């Protein structure tokens, strides 16, 4: 089992590559979501301002 994860002395390189990939993919999702939230909030604020002005 340990041997399987050791990747024949290349473990540090292989695992850091896969780990970094996971981090970047999560970052992509998080960034897309936060941008979506920002835009939603901007529109909601504007709509509320319009409502109270009417």
């Amino acid at each position, binding site marked *: 089992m340990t041997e*399987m994860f050791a*990747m*024949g*002395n*290349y*473990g540090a*390189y*292989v695992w*850091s*590559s*896969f780990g*970094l*990939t996971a981090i*970047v*993919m999560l*970052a*992509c*999702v998080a*960034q*897309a*979501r936060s*941008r*979506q939230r920002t*835009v*939603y909030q*901007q*529109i*909601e604020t*504007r*709509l509320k301002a319009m409502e109270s002005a009417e």
Partner: protein
Amino acid sequence: MWTFFHKLASPPHFYDISARFIPWFAVLGLLLIGYGTVAGLFFAPADYQQGDAFRIIYVHVPAAYLSMMAYSIMAVSAAIGLIWRMKLAHAVAAGAAPLGAWFTFLALATGSIWGRPMWGTWWEWGDPRLTSELIMLFLYFGYMALRAAIDDTTKADKASAVLALVGAVNIPIIHFSVEWWSSLHQGPTLVREGGPAIEPAMLYPLLAMIFGFTFFFGALLLARVRTEVLSREHRARWVRNMMMGESA
């Protein structure tokens, strides 16, 4: 067929339809990536030259391929936006840029990690493949900075589209760099004369990863373009109706 495209180009219609594809793309992407990761790390045989270090190919190649795919989507969309003044196309270009930048970063970083044990160096200045990929990262940064610097969306669309198109020269340079010049980088594995130079037990996980990454990227791109469309159309009646409907 054409009516389908015309309909799709209308922002509310796109906003509605794209939402249905995102969960499918995401699930399909994650399944393929899951299979590819397990099979690539544990079931594919070690390479006869590179040993287990070759397994970095399973994240490096999909990332590098997507970094170029994202740029191509960005440049083609920018061109469509410029020529036919289609706003949705500009939204697609704007949505593709940050994703392309992330995958370019990932391709450079995993390539660097792979290079250390194989070439004995993290980075080689002057290497054509490495340098042209790095230039693409700066092109993405330039594109995003230019968009952010111009408040007027129409002007930002035009200026950034020109930048995207000029930078597109770099795409064939990246692709052919390993053939045109001598490079530390190995030659193509999959797209080459005589078919893929890789055995099936190594190939299938790689294909799964490439398609998995692509679906994942597709889901992210749709999500980003939807946000972009919403932000551009914030004054439109359909956005107002939708937001009111959601909050009610």
